[in-house]
C-alpha cells in the first residue's frame, strides 16, 4: 500500500544529496514536472539523474541542471534545440554525461527491476559507446554486455492511481514510467487523480501497486476538470470499493 500525500515536497523527501534519481518522460510527455519542481525546492544536490533527455527550456530537469544540483546525467539524448542549461553546464565541465543508446537505457532499467545481473545486447556493438565493454559472439552475432541501472528514487508521472498503488498511463506518456517504477528502491508517482481501490480493472493495470511507494495528486489538466475516459476505469460496485 503506497503512502498518499498531498504535498509534492513530502513526496520527494526520499531524495537525498548524492541520490540516483530516475526521472520518467520522453521530452515533456510523462515528465513529472511538479515532482521535479519540488526536488529543486528541496535543495538536494550532487544528484545522478537517469532520464531519456537532459532537460528542455527553463523547466523541470533543466532547472536542476541550471542550479548545478546534478553531478551526472545518464541519458540517451541530451542535445536538443532548447537544452541550453545542459549545454552550458557540459561546456563548462560542470556535469558528467554517460551517454547510453535509448534501448540499452530502457533494458538496463528493466534488468534492475527484474533482478538480471547483466545482459548481452547487440545495440552499440562496434561503436564508440561500447568502447572498453565486454563483447561476445553468440550464434554468429556480436553483443555487448550491459549492466542494470538502479535508482534510489524514481520520479514518474501516471494518469490514475488507485489506493493500492496500481497505475495506468496515458498514450505515449507511458514511456519509461513502468520500467523506472520497478528499478528504484523508492518510487514516487504524480497522478492526475487518485481512485478508490477496485476502480482500475485488473486486466488493464499497467504498473502493479507493488512497485509504487508514494502517490501524490497533481491535476495538471486543471483542477476540477473531469477525467477523460480510460479503459481501465470501471464502474465500481459497493462490494468492490475499498479505501477512499
Amino acid at each position, binding site marked *: *500500500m503506497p503512502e498518499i500525500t498531498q504535498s509534492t515536497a513530502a513526496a520527494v523527501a526520499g531524495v537525498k544529496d548524492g541520490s540516483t534519481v530516475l526521472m520518467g518522460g520522453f521530452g515533456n510527455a510523462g515528465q513529472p514536472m511538479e515532482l521535479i519542481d519540488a526536488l529543486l525546492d528541496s535543495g538536494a544536490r550532487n544528484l545522478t539523474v537517469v532520464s531519456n533527455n537532459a532537460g528542455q527550456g527553463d523547466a523541470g530537469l533543466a532547472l536542476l541542471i541550471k542550479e548545478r544540483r546534478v553531478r551526472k546525467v545518464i541519458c540517451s539524448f541530451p542535445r536538443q534545440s532548447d537544452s541550453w542549461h545542459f549545454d552550458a553546464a557540459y561546456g563548462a565541465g560542470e556535469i558528467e554525461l554517460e551517454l547510453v543508446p535509448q534501448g540499452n537505457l530502457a533494458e538496463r532499467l528493466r534488468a534492475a*527491476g527484474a*533482478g538480471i545481473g547483466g545482459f548481452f545486447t547487440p545495440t552499440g556493438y562496434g561503436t564508440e559507446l561500447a568502447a572498453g565493454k565486454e563483447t561476445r559472439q553468440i550464434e554468429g552475432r556480436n553483443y555487448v554486455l550491459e549492466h542494470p541501472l538502479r535508482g534510489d528514487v524514481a520520479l514518474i508521472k501516471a494518469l490514475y492511481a488507485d489506493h493500492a498503488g496500481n497505475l495506468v498511463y496515458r498514450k505515449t506518456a507511458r514511456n519509461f514510467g513502468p520500467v523506472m517504477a520497478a528499478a528504484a528502491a523508492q518510487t514516487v508517482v504524480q497522478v492526475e487523480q487518485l481512485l478508490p481501490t477496485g476502480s482500475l480493472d*485488473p*486486466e488493464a493495470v499497467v504498473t502493479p501497486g507493488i512497485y509504487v511507494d508514494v502517490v501524490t495528486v497533481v491535476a495538471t489538466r486543471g483542477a476540477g476538470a473531469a477525467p477523460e475516459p480510460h479503459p481501465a476505469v470501471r464502474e465500481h460496485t459497493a462490494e468492490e470499493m475499498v479505501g477512499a
Partner: protein
Amino acid sequence: MSGTGTRLSRQELARLVARDIAPGSYVNLGIGQPTMVADYLTAEQHVTLHTENGMLGMGPQAHGDRIDDELINAGKIPVTELPGASYFHHADSFAMMRGGHLDVCVLGAFQVSASGDLANWSTGAPDAIPAVGGAMDLAIGAKEVFVMMSLFARDGTAKLVPECTYPVTGLGCVTRVYTDCGVFHILEQDGARRLKLVEPYGLSADQIQDQLEVELSA
C-alpha cells in the same frame, strides 16, 4: 524465549507465520502447507498475495459458481480476485519475484541448512521425474524466505542440517524456519550466517539442540 508445553499443529504453525508477516506486505505462499497461512492473515494486515502464474491481489479459493478455470493459483487451484488486483504475464511475474519486490515468500522444505540453503524441489531419487516449477525463483527472489516444515522427518532425522544432502533449490536464501518444535531465525552476523532458536515448542531449547547436528547461536 519460552515455549509452550506441546508441539505446534499445522494450523498453529500457519497462524504463527501469519502473525509474523508485517502489515502491508506483498507475499507469495508456496504450494501445500504454506497455503494455509492465508487463512490466518487478518484484514487489518492488508497483505497482498502474489501468485507466480501472473496475479497480485489473489483472494481465497473459489467454490461453486465462482470457480473459473482461467483464474487459478500456482497450485492450479481455482481462486478469486480481490479489489486492487492486477494480472501480468509470466516474464513480468517472475521479474517481480527475481527483482526482490516481494517482501516474504513462504515455502515448504525437505531440508534447510544452518546457513540458509534450501532443499525443497527434489529428493534426488534416481528414478523420479524431476520437476522444479517456480521453486528456485521463489527461493532467491523475496526479501525474506520463511520455511514451514516439521523439524524432524518421519524417520526421526532432523531437517535442519549442517549441509543439505538433498539437491538444493537455492543457497543462503532462507531467513526463518517455522517448525512444529520451534521458530528459528537465520541471521547475518559479522559476515556469517547464524541459526537462532527464538521460540521452542514442546521441547526445551536444550532438547532441541541435543537432537540437531547444527549449533544454535545464543
